[in-house]
C-alpha cells in the first residue's frame, strides 16, 4: 500500500487543501500554522478514540457549521500482488472496490453538523471512486475501518516513566510465565517473605510499630496492629521494576537519566508494545516534533530510524529540525504555511540517482532551507560569505523574516529550485555569466551561465543558445598563428558584457522570475559597485586578488566592508538579488 493523497475540507484552519503523500511524510512550517491540525485530520479519520468526541463547532473552518467537514485519504493498491497491507485492505473493503479502478482506494470521514446534537457526527465512507464513496456501517463509533488501521500518536512530551508504568502489566504478563519462570517466581515470593521477616525483626522497626499502634488506638480503639512491609511482597516483584541502562563491558548500571536517552527508550517501548498488540493492523505513526529535548546527534540517529527502519512503514512526522531530515528519500514534504488563510503544499521529494552518493549533503543543505519562506541560491562559499556580511550589516533580521541563503556548492541549482518551488517557497538565484570553450574547438564558446538561468525558467519552452566565436589568436612575428591566454581573458570579459547587452530582453524576463545573472561574475560586479573600496583594501588589481584564493581572500575582504559599503552594494543594480531576499513584499513567483 502506498499513501497517495490527503484532502482536507472545511476542517479547523484548512478550507480546502489537497496534498500528495508517500509512505513517509514530513510536515513542517512555522509555529501555529496548523501542523497539529493536519495531524488531527488524520486522527479524526483513523482513530476512533478521537472520532468518538465528534466534530465541535470549533472544528469547522471559521466555525462555519453549514459546510461539511470532509477528510479523505487516498491510497494506491497497485502492489497488491505482493504487499500484505494492500491485500488486507482488499479483504476488508469487499464490494467497495470495482474492477474498473483496482489500483485506487479512498477512506473518508465526513462531519455534517447536527444542531440537535450540537456537534458533527463523524461518518465513515470508502470506495475506489472519489466521487462515489460508500458509507461504511458503524456500530456506535466503531467502523470496519478501525479493524484495518491503527494510529499511533507519538506525543512530543512522550514520557518514559509513564509509558512504562502504564504498560507494565502488559509487558510482564504473569499468565505468560513458563514452567521454569513459575519456579523462580515461587522462590522470589519466599525470598520476599524472608526479607519482610528480617525487616520486622529489626529493633527500630519493632519499636516504631509498637508506638504507632499505640497512637492509633488512642484515636480509635480497634483490635488492629500496624506493621511495616516491603512493597515487594505486597504488590508483587514486577511492580518494582524500572529500566536501567547497562553498557557493554561495564558492570555498573546507570539510571536512564537524560531526556534524550529516555525518549529513545520510550519510542522503543512503544514500538514493542504495538507489535505485541496490533498483530495485523496497518500501523500509521503520527510523530509530533520528536526533536524536543533530543541532542542534534540523537536527532540524526532518529532520522536514520525513521527513514530507514522497517518499523516505521507509514508515518507523518512534524518537525522544526533539519537534522531529522538528513536521511529522507522518497518522502513527501508537506509545508503548511499561512497566506490569506492556511495553505498547504506538498512535494514528493526523491533524491535523483545522480545525487545518491551525496544524499546526505544534499539533504543537509536543502533541509535547512525548507523552513524558510524565501531562499537565495548562490554558487559557492565566497558568495555566501560576502552576502552574509552585507545582510548582517544592512538587515540582520532577515532569517527571522523567513529569508535563507543557500550555497549550492557548484552550479546545480535545479534540484534545489525544484523542491523549494514545489513547496511554494520563493527561490532567488544569483549566478555568474560563465562562458565555456567547446572541447577541441578552443575558440568556440557556449553561453553556459545564461543557459543555466534560462533552464531554471519554468513553463517556458526550452531555449538553446547558439555558441559564439571568440578568436583570440594572433599572428606572431614569424607569421605563425598563436593563442594568448592573456588576450583570451580580456576578450572573454568584453564578450560577456556584449552578451549582457545582446540578451537584454531575456535577462529582464529572468529578473522578473527572480533569476539574476551577473554581468561578468561576482568579483567584477562587486568592483562595479564599490571599486575604490576594493582598491583601497586589496591593491591595484583587487579582482584578480579575490579570484585567486576565492574563499580566504573574500573572508579577509569582508572585514574591510563598512555598513556604507554594504548599503552601496545592496542598492546597486547588479545586486538586486539580495534586495529581493530582504524586501518585505512577497515576491511573485513563477
Amino acid at each position, binding site marked *: 500500500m502506498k499513501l497517495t493523497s490527503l484532502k482536507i475540507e472545511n476542517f479547523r484552519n484548512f478550507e480546502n487543501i489537497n496534498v500528495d503523500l508517500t509512505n513517509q511524510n514530513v510536515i513542517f512550517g512555522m509555529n501555529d500554522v496548523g501542523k497539529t491540525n493536519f495531524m488531527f485530520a488524520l486522527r479524526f479519520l483513523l482513530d476512533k478514540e478521537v472520532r468518538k468526541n465528534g466534530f465541535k463547532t470549533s472544528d469547522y473552518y471559521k466555525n462555519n457549521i453549514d459546510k461539511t467537514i470532509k477528510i479523505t485519504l487516498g491510497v494506491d493498491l497497485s502492489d497488491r500482488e505482493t504487499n500484505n497491507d494492500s491485500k488486507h485492505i482488499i479483504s476488508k473493503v*469487499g464490494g467497495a*472496490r470495482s474492477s474498473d479502478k483496482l489500483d485506487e482506494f479512498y477512506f473518508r470521514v465526513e462531519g455534517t453538523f447536527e444542531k440537535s446534537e450540537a456537534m458533527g457526527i463523524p461518518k465513515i465512507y470508502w470506495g475506489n471512486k472519489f466521487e462515489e464513496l460508500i458509507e461504511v456501517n458503524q456500530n456506535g463509533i466503531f467502523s470496519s475501518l478501525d479493524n484495518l488501521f491503527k494510529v499511533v500518536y507519538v506525543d512530543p512530551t512522550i514520557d518514559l516513566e509513564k509509558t512504562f508504568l502504564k504498560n507494565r502489566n502488559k509487558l510482564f504478563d504473569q499468565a505468560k510465565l513458563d514452567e521454569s519462570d513459575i519456579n523462580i517466581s515461587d522462590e522470589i515470593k519466599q525470598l520476599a517473605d524472608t526479607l519482610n521477616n528480617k525487616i520486622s525483626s529489626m529493633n527500630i522497626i519493632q519499636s516504631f510499630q509498637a508506638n504507632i499502634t499505640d497512637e492509633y488506638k488512642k484515636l480509635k480503639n480497634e483490635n488492629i496492629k500496624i506493621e511495616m512491609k516491603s512493597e515487594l511482597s505486597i504488590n508483587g516483584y514486577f511492580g518494582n521494576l524500572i529500566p536501567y541502562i547497562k553498557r557493554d563491558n561495564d558492570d555498573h548500571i546507570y539510571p536512564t537519566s537524560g531526556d534524550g536517552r529516555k525518549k529513545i527508550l520510550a519510542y522503543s517501548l512503544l514500538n514493542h508494545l504495538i507489535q505485541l498488540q496490533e498483530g495485523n493492523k496497518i500501523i500509521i505513526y503520527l510523530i509530533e516534533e520528536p526533536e524536543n529535548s533530543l541532542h542534534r546527534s540523537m536527532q540524526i540517529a532518529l532520522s536514520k530510524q525513521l527513514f530507514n527502519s522497517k518499523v516505521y512503514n507509514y508515518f507523518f512526522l512534524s518537525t522544526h529540525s533539519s537534522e531529522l531530515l538528513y536521511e529522507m528519500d522518497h518522502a513527501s514534504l508537506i509545508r503548511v504555511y499561512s497566506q490569506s488563510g492556511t495553505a498547504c503544499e506538498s512535494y514528493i521529494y526523491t533524491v535523483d540517482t545522480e545525487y545518491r552518493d551525496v544524499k546526505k549533503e544534499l539533504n543537509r543543505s536543502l533541509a535547512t532551507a525548507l523552513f524558510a519562506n524565501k531562499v537565495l541560491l548562490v554558487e559557492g562559499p565566497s558568495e555566501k560569505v560576502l552576502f552574509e556580511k552585507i545582510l548582517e550589516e544592512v538587515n540582520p533580521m532577515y532569517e527571522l523574516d523567513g529569508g535563507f541563503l543557500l550555497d549550492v556548492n557548484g552550479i546545480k541549482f535545479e534540484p534545489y529550485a525544484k523542491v523549494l518551488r514545489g513547496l511554494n517557497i520563493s527561490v532567488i538565484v544569483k549566478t555568474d555569466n560563465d562562458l565555456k570553450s567547446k572541447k577541441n574547438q578552443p575558440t568556440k564558446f557556449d553561453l553556459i551561465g545564461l543557459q543555466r538561468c534560462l533552464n531554471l525558467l519554468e513553463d517556458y519552452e526550452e531555449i538553446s543558445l547558439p555558441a559564439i566565436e571568440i578568436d583570440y589568436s594572433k599572428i606572431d612575428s614569424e607569421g605563425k598563428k598563436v593563442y594568448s591566454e592573456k588576450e583570451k581573458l580580456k576578450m572573454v570579459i568584453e564578450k560577456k558584457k556584449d552578451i549582457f547587452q545582446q540578451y537584454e530582453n531575456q535577462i529582464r524576463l529572468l529578473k522578473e522570475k527572480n533569476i539574476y545573472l551577473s554581468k561578468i561574475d561576482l568579483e567584477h560586479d562587486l568592483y562595479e559597485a564599490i571599486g575604490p573600496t576594493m582598491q583601497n583594501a586589496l591593491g591595484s588589481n583587487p579582482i584578480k586578488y579575490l579570484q585567486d584564493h576565492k574563499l580566504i581572500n573574500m573572508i579577509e575582504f569582508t572585514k574591510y566592508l563598512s555598513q556604507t559599503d554594504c548599503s552601496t552594494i545592496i542598492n546597486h543594480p547588479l545586486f538586486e538579488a539580495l534586495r529581493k531576499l530582504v524586501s518585505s513584499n512577497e515576491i511573485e513567483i513563477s
Partner: protein
Amino acid sequence: MVKKMGIELNKIADHRTIAAITFTIKATQEIKKKAQQSINKKIVVMTNDSFIEKEITRPFIRDAFGPQYSGEYAVEYGNEYKFNTSNDGLEQLKTKNILGSFRNNKQNFKFKVALAILQRSVAAKEYLVSKYKVLFIDEYQDSDQDMHNFFMFLKNVLCIKIFIVGDGKQAIYIWRGAMSNIFELLVKEKFNNYELVTNFRCHKAIENYANLLHNTSYFDNQSELVDTVVFKKYPYNNFENLPVSFSQLVSNNIIDVNKEITIISNFNDDAKAITTSLNEKGYDFVFIPRTPIDEGLPNGYLLKELAMFSKNTDYTIYDFIENIGNDERTQTRIEINQIISGLKKSKNLVEEKIKVIISNLSSYLGMKISIEEIAKFCESVCDPQYEMAFHLSDKKHKVMTVFAAKGLEFDQVISFSRYYSIHVNDNMQNHYVCVTRAKEKFVMFIDNDRYSEHVIRTALINGLNEPNKLFKKIE
C-alpha cells in the same frame, strides 16, 4: 474439522482468515459452538447460501453485470418467480430486483450467478483471495452440480485451499439436486483424500453392519457373536401387536427402558400410530412430528424457533434471541418482543394475524420470508397434529421420521424393514442414516423377509456365512 480449522488458523500470520461453510444454520451453530472452545481468532462461519450472498453476489453484482443491477435484491422462492433459463433469471433480477429460482430444482441459480460474478469481476476475485486462506466445507455430499462448480472454481482458478468433509452415504437431499456421485467427482480434482472409517458414535458391530451394506470395503469379517444389532421377527403389515413385541424386547433385556429409545418410521402417520399403540399399553413415547417448516425452507430455522416461541410456554424471548443468533442488546430484545409477543397467546392465533407479525419481523430483521413459508408456518403452529414438535422434551422415548433424526444420536434405535427396499438399491441413504443413529443398540423389526434375505446374501458374498456374527435374530 473444527480441530483442523484451529490448526490452519494458527498457521496464518497475516490478516487472512478461514471460513467454515455449511449446509444448514443448525450446522453453523454447532461449528460456532465447537469453535468457541478451541479457537480464539475471528473466523467466518456461514451457510453456503449466505456465504455467496454476503461475500459475492450482493457486494459485486454491479461490478460484474453493470449498474442496472443492485445488490439490494430480494430473494423469492415463490412459483411466480421461477424460470427456465439463466437469462430469464438474470432479466428478472435486473428489472424486478428479485432473485428467483429455476423451475427445475436440480439447478441452482444463486450459485450460477455467484460463479458468473466471480468470472467477470476482478475485484470480487481479489477480495476472496485476499481474505481467505482456507475454506472448510461441511456436508459436501449435499452439494449440487452448481455448488460443486463454484467451489472448484475457488480451488482451481483462485487457488484458495479447500478442505471438504462429507459422507456420501448421508446424502438425503438428492431430491433437490444433490449429486449422488459427488465424491467420485472429487477424485478427479486432485484432493488429498482421507477416508474416516471409524464411526465414533456407533458401537463397532453396528458400524460394521452399516459398512456391510454401504461401505463394503470396510466390512470386517469378524468372528465374535453380535448382540448389538438385532433382527426382531414381526410378521405384521401395520402395527398390530407392537406393544407385545416391544415388551418382549424389554423383558429379554434387549432394550433398556431406562435409556434413550427412538423409533424411526418414515411417515408422520405411522409414527403417530406407533406412539398411540405403545402408550396405550403404558409406555411413555412422544411423537416428534416433522412439521411443514422442517421441509428445508430458506428461513426454516428462524421459523422453527419462532414456532417454539409461539407454542412452548417455557421458551422465552431470551431463548429466541439467543437461538436466532441476533445481537443481545436490550433494545433489540424489547423491540423483537413487541413484534412477536402476539404469537405467545396461541389460543387465538389466526392466519391473518400471523402474516402481519411475520412480515413485521422480517422487515425488522431485514430478511425476506416468502408467502409460501408463511403459509407453512401457519399450518405448523395452527394444526394440533404438530403440537409435540414444539415442546422441548426431556423424555427419553421418542418416535420420529428419518428426516427429523438426521444429525441426532440415540442410545437405542428401532425401525421397520418395510421402509428400506435395500434389496433393489432403494432408500439406501435413509437406511444408512437410520442405522447409524444408534449408539448402543439397533433393532430392526423384520416385517419383510426380502430385507433379511438381502442382508444374509450380502454377508455370504463377503465371506460371512454365520449371520449371528452380524446380527442377533429373535423370534
